[in-house]
């Protein structure tokens, strides 16, 4: 890492060649599934949709299929394992907005998860003396609460260099757990029993959303993941998403190109926090019990490991990483005890040897930038006499 912020050389032919070489190299190194994303992008749009529909239907059928070898039984109930995996996947999607898109390291993501869980618990559990509201209303409320704290934490720290955010969020992750322990109203280890659940009974009068039955929770979370994915995908392709990627690649350059970096960083952080709160509320509902034991900072590192393993900046990778991080300890119960050791070491190894993760993000910004450059070069003669070339923020900011 260079510690200087000195001037960089103006790109000449040689360095342009070097850049081209590097891009070619990046294209060659495609993680563990070489060429997968290229092949995917080469498919016609209709085929892509068809494959996606099949994948989504398969995902919905997973709890019923209970495929052998993959299943976590007999060690753990497969439906509940799926529900947990889906919550982790949602967490990873949210954290991916912060770490993957905007390049901000949030090490206390579990705090937002905890805030969501406690919001759901304190407004639905009979153990809580406060107002009670229907469970489904706590989902947006949990998002709002987590987002509020995200902004409160983000505004002072995001003005500074990224490292401070890492340590402040790390501290925050631990503090929320400690506060849950020492503030009497949050009931420490005693916690809140019988957290609410969505309404509905089946034909025999049984509650659908039972804590012991993971399937409806899995379907609910999966549906929410799909909604969040669509939203995140749109954000990623929008002006906001391009700004995030510009910030991630080179914050100073983005600022100079006119990207209001601070504003977009707060946005990324707050959006990430709200998804964390949402997943926390879902987790609280599924487990049905919230106390201070589930939100230690180690869980936060698992979340980061999920995003990094999946491929920072790739939302499909994030889902995969999140599901894997939950799945591995449930499936291989023999190594469950060492999960923090394994995922901690995995972080180091991935960062050193394969920083892209399982499914590396496409260097979409580079691609956009090159595209814009080629278009401009081709259209030099066509530039109107006013010479007004509108460059959107983010485009070309990387070079």
């Amino acid at each position: 890492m260079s510690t200087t912020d000195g001037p960089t050389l103006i790109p000449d032919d040689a360095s342009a060649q070097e850049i081209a070489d590097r891009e070619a190299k990046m294209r060659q190194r495609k993680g563990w599934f070489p060429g997968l994303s290229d092949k995917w992008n080469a498919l016609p749009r209709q085929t892509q949709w068809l494959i996606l529909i099949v994948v989504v239907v398969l995902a919905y059928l997973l709890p019923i299929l209970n495929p052998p070898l993959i299943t976590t039984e007999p060690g753990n109930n497969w439906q509940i394992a799926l529900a947990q995996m889906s919550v982790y996947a949602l967490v990873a999607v949210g954290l991916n907005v912060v770490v993957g898109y905007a390049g901000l390291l949030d090490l206390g993501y579990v705090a937002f998860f905890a805030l969501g869980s406690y919001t759901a618990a304190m407004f639905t559990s009979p153990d809580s003396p406060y107002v009670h509201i229907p469970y489904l209303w706590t989902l947006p409320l949990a998002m709002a609460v987590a987002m509020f704290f995200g902004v409160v934490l983000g505004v002072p720290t995001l003005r500074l260099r990224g490292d401070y955010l890492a340590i402040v969020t790390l501290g925050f992750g631990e503090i929320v757990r400690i506060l849950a322990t020492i503030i009497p109203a949050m009931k420490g280890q005693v916690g809140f029993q019988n957290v609410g659940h969505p309404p509905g009974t089946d034909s025999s009068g049984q509650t659908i959303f039972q804590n012991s039955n993971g399937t409806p929770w899995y379907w609910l979370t999966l549906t929410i993941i799909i909604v969040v994915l669509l939203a995140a995908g749109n954000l990623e392709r929008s002006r906001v998403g391009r700004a995030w990627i510009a910030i991630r690649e080179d914050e100073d350059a983005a600022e100079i190109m006119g990207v209001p970096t601070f504003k977009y960083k707060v946005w990324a952080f707050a959006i990430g926090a709200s998804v964390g709160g949402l997943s926390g509320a879902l987790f609280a509902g599924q487990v049905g019990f919230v106390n201070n034991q589930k939100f230690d900072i180690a869980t936060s590192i698992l979340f980061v490991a999920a995003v990094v393993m999946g491929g920072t900046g790739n939302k499909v990778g994030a889902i995969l990483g999140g599901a894997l991080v939950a799945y591995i300890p449930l499936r291989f119960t023999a190594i469950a005890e060492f999960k923090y050791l394994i995922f901690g070491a995995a972080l180091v190894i991935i960062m050193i040897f394969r920083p892209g993760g399982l499914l590396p993000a496409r260097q979409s910004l580079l691609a956009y930038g090159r595209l814009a450059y080629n278009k401009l070069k081709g259209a030099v003669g066509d530039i109107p006499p006013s010479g007004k070339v509108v460059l959107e923020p983010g485009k070309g900011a990387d070079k």
Partner: protein
Amino acid sequence: MISEVIPTLLHSVPVDDTWITFDVNSFTQNFWSSTFDGLTFGAIYALVALGYTLVYGVLNLINFAHSEVFITGCYGVFFTLSALNFGPSAPRLGFWAIVGNLILALVVAIIASALMAVIVERVAYKPLRQRKAPRLAFLITAIGVSFAIQYTIYWWRGPSPEAALTMFRPLAIFDVFGTIVDSQQVVIIVAAVILMIATDQFIRRSRTGRGIRAVAQDPDTATLMGVNKEKIIVTTFIIGGILAGAAALFYVMKIPSGVQYNGGFILGVKAFAAAVLGGIGNVRGALLGGLLIGLIGNYGQVLLGSSQWTDVVAFVVLVLVLIVRPEGVLGSSLGKSKA
């Protein structure tokens, strides 16, 4: 405050659970004893903070694994003193025998910590430097290493803290405003301050110190001037390790049953808060920041009633400093400190 607003907003049912209570009485009664205790803890934080500050100054990197470097030293102290038959009650040894044993433990702790610091640097950070990895990669690796070490210790020693070790029975030395200052507090504060002054002078006067400052200021120019950058980086990690090893001895002295796999973690966050408060990259700032964090944390603990409030208070101080004066009280730059 929000914490007071929420219950009033939601006053539909009688609320008997409290959120936060202040115990001003206990605070005024225990003011001096918590001051001396706070200074003692502050001295320990300051020693650990130096490790963060030096590495940050040279590499612009928060070395999250520094808390594990520190806890390695704690295990060094624990194993040495256990082998020397120290136990939960104070040993029946002569003065010089105790001093000799403690110095032996100190040496072992320093070696263990410095070794761990070098291993972390070589295994985790050097490969990334060679690949010119982005900043984010360094931070993710740092936290990964920190957790890998923590849970290796967990695997080896289990979740519960090690048996308590008392090094010596604290003797009352003098009396300030009716509060007794004991030998333990004096030993820790004096030894820590001496170590900090020695480090400060080393950075300011020695040839290696000049190298460290040069690399902190501008690594490329320093390399052109003949400074061996890699060697300086390793030296910086070693100095941080040595100070963490010393801090480990004092920490076990102060908290006999504090040796635990994750014992260094929160202390690390507080030490980093101390480094930021004093001005990150600033050696003297680390001392000032450490003492301030120790004091503020201890006052908060007495005022709010639970020992875990120290962590919360230290964290709030960190955020406030970042809002009001992010460069810290004494300003932050290792490179610009005068020779």
